[in-house]
């Protein structure tokens, strides 16, 4: 061992380690853009990762069926009973449903926000390994006009924000993460405001939180929460989620609500990135 410490091999290893530490320090300074080596690796590995992810999803579903068959059997029996009950209500709901569909189409985000500039449809390549907040990678990057801090959405609602961009891949931080705060407002009253910000217990259930709500708010269960657009990071009036419950916050001076995101973040297959919209904060301001 003593000989090893005096050998040329040891010096080479120290140089190699210094080189890796140098790369580590350099990567910290890149501010949202991947290192060119990583970007190249991501481009090369993209088809393999896409294919293996598809295989992985199929295997997970098969294993899920295998391991939880008893649970599904019980659930199936219960659901059959529920179907009988629901069928009776179905007729009544049919007319209501048609009306809702009509309204949904009417307020379709694209019609209402003609100022939005979207990328093409972005396929989800895979979720970030073991991330409790369900960050994921998409198959569009800087070459397709994606930049850090661009909002990521589905037709159902806001999903998150771009945090790291390679040439042909980007990483998305979701609204389940405590590191992402979105100014939000009640779509019904347009007065009750709050901040959508994830936390660990909510993220475990695929939910997020609306915090810093005034005590005298008019929020009710089922209310739709939409973006307020005040930060300039997100477009105004985009759906985020529905209120599940509301309770006093631990600080005692405000209320806090649990919200269910409109988009099912744990099962995304494709999303859209909004590259530009009216009221977007200028990049120069960002840098300042």
């Amino acid at each position, binding site marked *: *061992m003593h000989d090893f410490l005096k050998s040329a*091999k040891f010096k080479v290893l120290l140089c190699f380690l210094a080189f890796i530490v140098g790369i*580590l320090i350099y990567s910290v300074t890149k501010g949202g853009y991947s290192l060119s080596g990583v970007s190249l690796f991501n481009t090369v590995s993209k088809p393999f*990762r896409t294919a293996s992810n598809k295989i992985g999803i199929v295997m997970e579903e098969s294993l899920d069926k295998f391991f939880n068959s008893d649970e599904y059997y019980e659930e199936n029996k219960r659901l059959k009973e529920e179907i009988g009950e629901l069928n009776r209500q179905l007729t009544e709901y049919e007319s209501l449903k048609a009306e809702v569909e009509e309204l949904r189409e009417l307020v379709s985000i694209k019609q209402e926000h003609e100022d939005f500039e979207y990328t093409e449809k972005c396929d989800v390549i895979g979720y970030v390994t*073991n991330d409790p907040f369900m*960050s994921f990678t998409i198959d569009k990057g800087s070459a397709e006009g994606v930049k850090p801090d661009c909002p990521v959405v589905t037709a159902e609602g806001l999903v998150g924000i771009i945090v790291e961009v390679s040439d042909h891949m980007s990483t998305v931080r979701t609204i389940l993460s405590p590191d992402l705060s979105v100014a939000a407002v009640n779509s019904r009253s347009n007065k009750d405001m709050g901040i959508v910000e994830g936390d*660990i*217990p909510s993220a475990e259930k695929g939910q997020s939180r609306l915090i810093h709500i005034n005590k005298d708010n008019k929020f009710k269960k089922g209310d739709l929460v939409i973006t307020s657009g005040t930060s300039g990071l997100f477009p105004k009036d985009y759906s985020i989620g529905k209120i599940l419950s509301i309770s006093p916050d631990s600080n005692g001076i405000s209320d806090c609500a649990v919200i269910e995101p409109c988009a099912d973040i744990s099962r995304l297959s494709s999303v859209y990135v909004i590259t530009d919209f009216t009221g977007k904060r200028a990049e120069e301001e960002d840098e300042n």
Partner: protein
Amino acid sequence: MKIRTPREKRILYIKNILRWIITYAVIFICFLIMTSGTWLKPVLLVPAAVAVALANGQLSSAFTGAVCGYLIDIAGDKVIGTNAVILTVFSVVISLLYEYYLRNKFVNYMIITAVVSYVVLWLDYKFYYEMWEYEYVERIFAQTSMKVWAYTIVSAVVIYFIFELINHYLMPKNHVTIEEAVSTAVQTGRH
């Protein structure tokens, strides 16, 4: 050491190249598995780096450790280099331990893998979650890090046998059998 004919040397050289190609193919497959699906997954690249380090020299172990670390960083969206530094250091230490103190036993491999993967996951938890003081942050350690650690240890068994298989068939052997020693003595004229 056995004296080898040019043909034997050529075969050995090809075997060695093949061994590294297969090793890196296995490492890439581990990376693909880690980036697939939505479930929690073992950090397969840690047992892979340990398996390479226990059978190779310090330089090749360090390089492979760095590659595995970079792939973990890419898969987990971490700052590029964090795990590369950790695994490089561990790979060199493991390689030295096996060269001077330890024998290539399954139990040794499992203990080392358990320790290294725990350190990797603990540092990940400390720097990416606990340091930022999220509410209920300890749940991430209990429900994510510890589960991933358990999965990693279980999956290390498979990784160990894959690398043992690769080494068994493709690793150059330094020892000689009695027959080979006699044959070498005959070739060199030492009776």
